[in-house]
């Protein structure tokens, strides 16, 4: 066993507060951020996942169960539903964090930043690299390692956001509307393949650092929430609250909102709009970095392709909540995460992405501005 691994395992065992046996990786969590349906081959502990996600749908099992003992129907219903709610909340807060980057950029420059999902992917790699470097230097305080990783990842990812805006989008500020979109798609390819070229195409991972689990209920009917899941929910809600404060209460936030409302007028009033646009890219990238660190800690494995699907889903969340609206992005993320988890837990895992995109199409047809978006007034 390599020294780093034994160290990590030692730390993990010491840190453990709940049941040691159920590591975060063994849970039948539906929080998968890998690319397509074919990439689940290395997902560990298939037996346990199959039990919850497999072919037997919830309704099938409820029916079978109620046939034997109708009295237990509600209890059975309750714990699976609650488990999916927990999973959905986790997934949703991640979507919300990434959606912030899309929605702020769209609000301020009116473009879909296709490279944002790949910025998130870069942050997942950075997390693993940071953790590995820290542990190889013999740092054995887990909270310190996590905080240092979070800070470093946010810093470097934010630098990525700034650079991408500077290199690929700023020269196109006055170009036709489609030009930045193509440039963004190009940037996304550059990031994906740059990472693939330098880090290799194989799936990478981090060891399970925090295997602690909280468990409610007894016997076979229980709801469990891992410490990492709890951390995801707490950290994302905190950072969303902090960001809302930043946008609503600070001078920088006022400048951002002014630039979003009318860029030319804001410039006339002395706001350096280029700097504000850069700031928005930096904030979005930093939020994606938080999501990247949390997902990497929770799921444990990633590859250079994860940015695409997660990015599209997060964008879906942003549109769902009303693009350009910050609370909308968070709400959209939570709704998408919850409905996706409930759908895959109760109906079918294979079609959960189809469900997510159908939800998007339906929302746009019946409420084109999203849930919290302001209706666009067309002026002649």
């Amino acid at each position: 066993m390599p020294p780093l691994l034994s160290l990590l395992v030692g730390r993990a065992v010491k840190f453990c507060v709940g049941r040691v046996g159920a590591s975060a990786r063994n849970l039948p969590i539906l929080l998968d951020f890998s690319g397509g349906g074919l990439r689940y081959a290395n997902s560990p502990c298939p037996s346990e996942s199959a039990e919850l996600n497999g072919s037997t749908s919830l309704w099938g099992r409820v029916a079978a169960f109620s046939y034997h003992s109708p009295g237990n129907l509600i209890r059975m219903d309750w714990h699976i539903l609650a488990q999916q709610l927990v999973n959905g909340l986790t997934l949703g807060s991640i979507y919300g964090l990434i959606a912030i980057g899309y929605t702020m950029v769209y609000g301020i420059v009116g473009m879909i930043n296709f490279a944002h999902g790949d910025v998130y992917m870069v942050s997942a790699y950075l997390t693993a690299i940071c953790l590995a470097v820290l542990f190889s230097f013999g740092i054995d305080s887990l909270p310190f390692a996590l905080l240092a990783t979070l800070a470093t990842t946010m810093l470097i990812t934010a630098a990525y956001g700034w650079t991408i805006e500077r290199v690929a989008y700023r020269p196109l500020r006055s170009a036709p509307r489609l030009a930045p979109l193509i440039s963004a798609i190009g940037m996304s390819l550059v990031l994906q393949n740059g990472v693939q070229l330098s880090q290799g195409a194989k799936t990478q991972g981090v060891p399970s650092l925090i295997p602690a689990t909280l468990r409610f209920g007894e016997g076979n009917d229980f709801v469990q929430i891992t410490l990492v899941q709890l951390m995801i929910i707490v950290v994302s809600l905190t950072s969303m609250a902090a960001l809302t404060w930043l946008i609503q209460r600070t001078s920088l936030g006022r400048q951002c909102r002014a630039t979003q409302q009318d860029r030319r007028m804001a410039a006339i009033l002395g706001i350096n709009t280029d700097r504000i646009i850069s700031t928005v890219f930096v904030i979005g990238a930093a939020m994606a970095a938080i999501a990247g660190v949390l997902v990497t800690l929770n799921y444990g494995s990633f590859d250079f392709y994860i940015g695409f699907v997660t990015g599209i889903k997060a964008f879906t969340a942003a549109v769902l909540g009303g693009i350009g609206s910050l609370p909308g992005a968070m709400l959209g993320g939570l709704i998408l995460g919850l409905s996706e988890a409930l759908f895959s837990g109760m109906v079918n895992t294979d079609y959960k992405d189809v469900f997510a995109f159908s939800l998007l199409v339906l929302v746009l047809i019946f409420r084109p501005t999203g849930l919290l978006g302001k209706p666009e007034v067309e002026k002649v």
Partner: protein
Amino acid sequence: MPSTAASPAASEVRWNLVFRQAVLEAAAAFALALLLLGPIVGLVLDGYQVKNELQRPLLIAAIIAVGRFLVTLATHTPAGQAALDRFNARRRQPGVLVVSAAESGRQRWWLLAIIILGLTLPFLASKYWLTVLIQAMIYVLLGLGLNIVVGLAGLLDLGYVAFYAVGAYGLALGAQYLDLGFWSALPLAAMLAALFGGVLGFPVLRMHGDYLAIVTLGFGEIIRLVLNNWLEFTGGPNGVSAPAPQLFGLEFTRTARDGGVPFHEYFQISYDPLHRFVFIYLVLFLIVCLMVVVVTRLRDMPVGRAWEALREDEIACRALGINHVLVKLSAFMMGATVGGIAGVFFATYQGFINPMSFNFFESALIVAIVVLGGLGSTTGVIVAAVVLTILPELLRAFADYRVFAFGALMVLMMIWRPRGLMRPRRRAFEVKGLCP
């Protein structure tokens, strides 16, 4: 230039300042490149540990810094300044180029030459280049189809590959379940794709531009995921095989398979597997020529003019009584039909298809073809499609860096020419006797 008129001392002071600025900018670029590339390129994950390869980011950062230094210096020389001005002026060129009737008459000879070249090329090419040519033609067709939607009607469709997939699967599944041949599947698959376009487009086209982009993107993914997951019907990731085309019942196989007569036996020539590809290429080439004619004519017809008018100002068009949903829908379904036809050719040329061929990258590639070629410019789209399919083949030596270079090229192209390679041309109409 003020510097040329200044005294030598002032010029020296100025150059010292420029030099200092260049050094500072190079240092900043070096630091930033090191921060960005240091961990990702320099520390390679190996299990739960990292391998130290820090010489790579150092080298790249040094190259970037030197490049930045030279560029900053160059932009301060008179020649560099002039180049920068030319560059910026070109970026601000207006959108449409008006071509006089005399000039468009001269272009006919070029057109004839290109058609003859296109028809003779497959007989000269090797099998490898023949497949590349077929691919290029498929992308030309896709580019032309999407050009109607994005370039002419101004509807950003990021899920165009869905219609391509519908066409391809229409041929493959039609052959499997309904026993359709290539020629009967061709119109049916095109109509099926148009139907899909209509069903998607009708509710969606009321929306504002960017929402359309994202809904079509979602739709493209839905089609791919359904094809991938519906194992019983589509074969899922394993794919399905597609039938080869026939020429009036003559098959392009060594021995007759579907009860027909092999092509080479009928014409008393020796069997050559290339015949099939040459045939596919020729049919495809004719369809592309037909498409070019159709698109050119459509642009001069009321519906084509309505497309372009809607692209420019939707509110004005609605005020003038144009039914915007129906006009947009016609463009959308037209594009879908062409996508479906391209899909049929893709399936028959590959002989086997699976959902992997219809991912978002394909959609992005087709949008890139249309935008790089110049929105609305038929010539530009054809050139971009041919270049973007042949360029990767020429870059095979750097196979690993191909997609990377492709992405970087997309960014650079957009910075260099945000309106694409060619500006759309509009013919000028001259009425004899009115113009002096």
